[in-house]
Every structure is written in C-alpha cells, then in structure tokens.
C-alpha cells in the first residue's frame, strides 16, 4: 500500500532539489564573476569551507542551542498538555486563564527576554524559560480544541455503554485529540528553536555554554561572514530536522498499526 506513495515522495522531492542546485550554482558563479569579497557576501564554497574548518566549535554551539530547544519543547509539551486538560475540565478555568495564554503568545519574546534574563540568575534556565514561553501556546490551543472536538455520535455511544468520565477520557477524548496535539507539536518544535536562538541573541553569553546565536554575533563582529552563514545554515538544518522528527513521530503514533493494547495498560 505504501509503495505508490513512496514513488510520489521521490518525484515530489526531486524538483525542489534541482532548484536548490541551480540556485547554489548561480550564487557561486555570481560571487566569482563579480569578485564579491567573502566579508560582504560569501560564495557557497566559502561557507562550506568554514563549515568544515569551524566544524568542532560550531557543533559545540549547535549542541548548546539544541539542548535549550529540546528541553523547552519537552517542557512546553508537558505544561501545554496539562493546561489543556485543566481547560477542558472546567469552562471557568479556561475563561479565566486563556486570555493570559494569548498575552504570552502575542508579546514579542525579544521584548520579554531581557527581563527574564535579568530576573533569572542562571542564563541556561533563562534561555529555557524564553523558549518554553513561545513554544507552549500552540500545544495549549491545539490540545484544548482536540479534547473538545468530540463526535456527538461517539459521545452517545459511550453514554449508552455507561462509560465513566475516566473511560471517556482515556478511550475517546485523548485518542480524538491526538491529531490536533501532533499538529501543535510540529509548530511548537519550530518555535522552541526560534525561542532558544532569540533568547541567546538577547543574552549574548559566551563561554562554555555559548550557542549558535553567539557564534553568529561573534562572526559578525569579526567580519567572519562565511562562518556566520555556516552557523545560520546549521540552525536551518536543525529546524528542518526537528520538524521532520515530529512528522515521523505523528505518523508512528497515528499510523494504522496503532495497537490498543498499549493504551489498555496505561
């Protein structure tokens, strides 16, 4: 059953890949033809060289940023799900707290980050808080909608079979909410990385725990533009990777092999 799909993914992936090659080639050619200095706009080859030469330090920075993003994503998932459950239990709770969740979401994190960094002594913790604040909202709103969006037929089915509140939650509400939750998780994965990078920019901390944002800042100060591009490239790749992992995760969880025995033990 999966074979025709696999073929189509290959044909789907080919055109953007070709476009990418063409753009890179044109970029390289233009940089060489117009002899643009690397400190203004580096050619892809220069970025590649920097990626190799500065590899160890960039990877260390990447790991530092990734760690913040992953911890923030984990916290956002946990907190977001719990908050969504509380919202669904009681309309008054939702009405009282939802506006504040929205306020947290719409206030630019760049504006709040300095405050958090001043208030929280440990920079690492401050970074994680910033990234969590921005990643938590899509999980809260999606999971809440998911837990609420019950099919009325299913509701009647459970009522006729005298299902308890807990049974309805475990066997009906949570599975119904899973697709919504995973959609929220995809968005949150990207936001957690953005949150981590933005917070690092504001904090500007160097030293052992310096992240990719610090590398970008430093490279900018020292006019090491290829290195800056290399760091940027790594951030983008990490974002794509995190997004892809979430897609795979949701496919695995919602896939047709999904065995009820696992839920039963829970």
């Amino acid at each position: 059953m999966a074979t025709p799909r696999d073929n189509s993914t290959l044909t789907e992936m080919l055109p953007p890949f070709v476009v990418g090659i063409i753009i890179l080639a044109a970029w390289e050619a233009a940089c060489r033809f117009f002899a643009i200095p690397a400190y203004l706009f580096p050619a892809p080859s220069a970025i590649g060289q920097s990626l190799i030469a500065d590899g160890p330090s960039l990877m260390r920075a990447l790991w530092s940023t990734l760690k913040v993003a992953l911890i923030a994503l984990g916290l956002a998932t946990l907190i977001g799900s719990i908050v969504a459950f509380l919202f669904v239990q009681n309309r008054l709770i939702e009405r009282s707290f939802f506006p504040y969740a929205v306020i947290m979401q719409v206030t630019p994190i760049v504006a709040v980050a300095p405050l958090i960094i001043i208030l929280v002594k440990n920079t690492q913790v401050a970074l994680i808080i910033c990234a969590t604040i921005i990643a938590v909202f899509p999980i809260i709103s999606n999971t809440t909608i998911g837990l609420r969006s019950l099919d009325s037929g299913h509701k009647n089915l459970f009522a006729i079979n005298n299902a308890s509140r807990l049974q309805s939650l475990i066997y009906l509400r949570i599975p119904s909410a899973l697709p919504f939750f995973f959609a929220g998780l995809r968005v949150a994965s990207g936001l957690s990385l953005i949150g981590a990078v933005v917070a690092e920019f504001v904090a500007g901390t160097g030293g052992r725990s310096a992240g990719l944002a610090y590398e970008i800042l430093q490279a900018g100060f020292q006019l090491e533009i290829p290195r800056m591009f290399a760091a940027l490239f790594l951030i983008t790749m990490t974002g794509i990777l995190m997004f892809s992992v979430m897609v795979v995760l949701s496919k695995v969880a919602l896939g047709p092999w999904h065995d009820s025995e696992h839920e039963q033990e829970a």
Partner: protein
Amino acid sequence: MKGNVVPMFDPPGPPDQKPEGAPARPLLRLTGISKTYANNTVALEGVDLDIRPGEFLTLLGPSGCGKSTLLKMIAGLAAPSTGTIDWPQSSYDALGEPDRLLGFVFQEPTLLPWRTVFDNVYLPLKLAGQRKAAVRERIMEVLAQVGLTRFANAYPRELSGGMKMRVSIARALVTNPRVLLMDEPFAALDEITRTKLNNDLLKLFAKQNLTVIFVTHSVYESVYLSSRIVVMSARPGRVSSDMTIDAPYPRDEEFRTSTIYNDYCRRASEALRQAMAESPEEPE
C-alpha cells in the same frame, strides 16, 4: 389485532418468553411522552406505546416527527419533558435507572477510527470491565454473524460503508441486548447494499430472540422488515396509526415480490400520506 403478532422461532434458553396463551407483559411502556424544546418547539406530544418482546417495530414518519428523539429517549440519551418510560421486565438500580439491556445502531457507523474492527466490537465489553481474553470468542462469534471474520484486524478506513455498518451492528449485538434500537441505519447506503443488509438483519432477528425498534422513512423497508409499523405525524410528533404486518418470518426476496407485501406497502403508504396530511407544512 394485538394478539396476532407472529410467534417468533424457538431459541435456546430465552430469557423472557412467556408460555403461550398468557399475554406477554410489554418489554417497554411509553406513557404520555411529550418533548418541548426551550424555544417552545413541540417535538413530541402525548405518545403512548407498548413494545412487546419479540416485536420488530418500525417508527415510520416524515422528518420532524420526533421518531429519532423517541428512540434516544428509550435509550436514556434524552429525557422526555413529560410522561414516563417504563421497563416492566427489567430490574431498576438504586438511582431508579432501569437495566435497559439495549444495543443502539446509529445513523452513522460511529466506529473509532484508531481501533481495529475487533477492538471496535470489543469496546462495549471493555467499557463494562471485561478482559479481552475472556470475550475473544464472543467477539469472533458476532463478527461471524455479520460476515466480517476476515476483517477482524482491519481498520475502519479500509472498509466500505456497508461493512462499517455491519461492524456497528456487531458492536450493538456483542453485549447480547434484549432490544436493538436502530436509527435509520441504512439511509446512507446504496440500494443493493441496503437490500443485502435488510436480509441479514432479518436473519439475525430470527436467530437472536431480539426485539427491534427501527426508525426509517422508507415505506418499503418498514414493510419488509417489521411485524408492526407505527406511523407518526409531525409538528408535533404524534402516533398517527399503528399497523401489524401479518406475514410470517423468515422473509426473503420472494416476500418482496408477493401480493401481500405489495398490499401492505400500499396500506403503509396510505397511512403515511394520512400522517403527512395531519402534519402542518414545515415552517421556513
């Protein structure tokens, strides 16, 4: 008239079949049922109905006659504004809730998409606290009855509309209900599938010592399936007429072409026309 409901088959160990001659107590007694919604729409008014064990009773009527609402009330999913629903043959718990022992087949199959056919049928037993290992045979038995043994491990999205409805019927039967409530279960299916499911439903009805309360707006379906048709008029929903289909079970395709079937179809159509005449036009 009331006495000549066709005697049912002779199943092994029937729970509540009375000896011949004695008038069977109704399984279900509806007295003065009315339903008025908050916006003062009267959905049902003064419905009295006795449902006897072993009947295949169809509620036939135009849309808006409250037949689905009536079914939901019997199932305990909705409460009447006035009137009572008694289960003379059932025990009542401390809260005054009757032990209804019913299965409900909805208009939609309402299967859980994340569960296999087997687990969907298992659901009512699971909610009743039964372990899967203990009821595996029972589940396979009902799946065999609806002809889906081979699809036990399939997911609902892999099934056709008719097969999904079969799973829904199996799920309703798995608890061995005394009453099967069916709310226009085949309305969304094509004619051929519908005919097939009608025949299969009659076979199950004959084998299981069931009482069926069936809602439809198809005259032909109601005559083909039922031992009794209650025709309802709309706005407000009332019982317009109550007719017995005095044709023996088992019924098959031959019955569909018989004179008696055509005769009953004509009479049911006439009764429905009468009920429509009693119903004011739908307000826009």
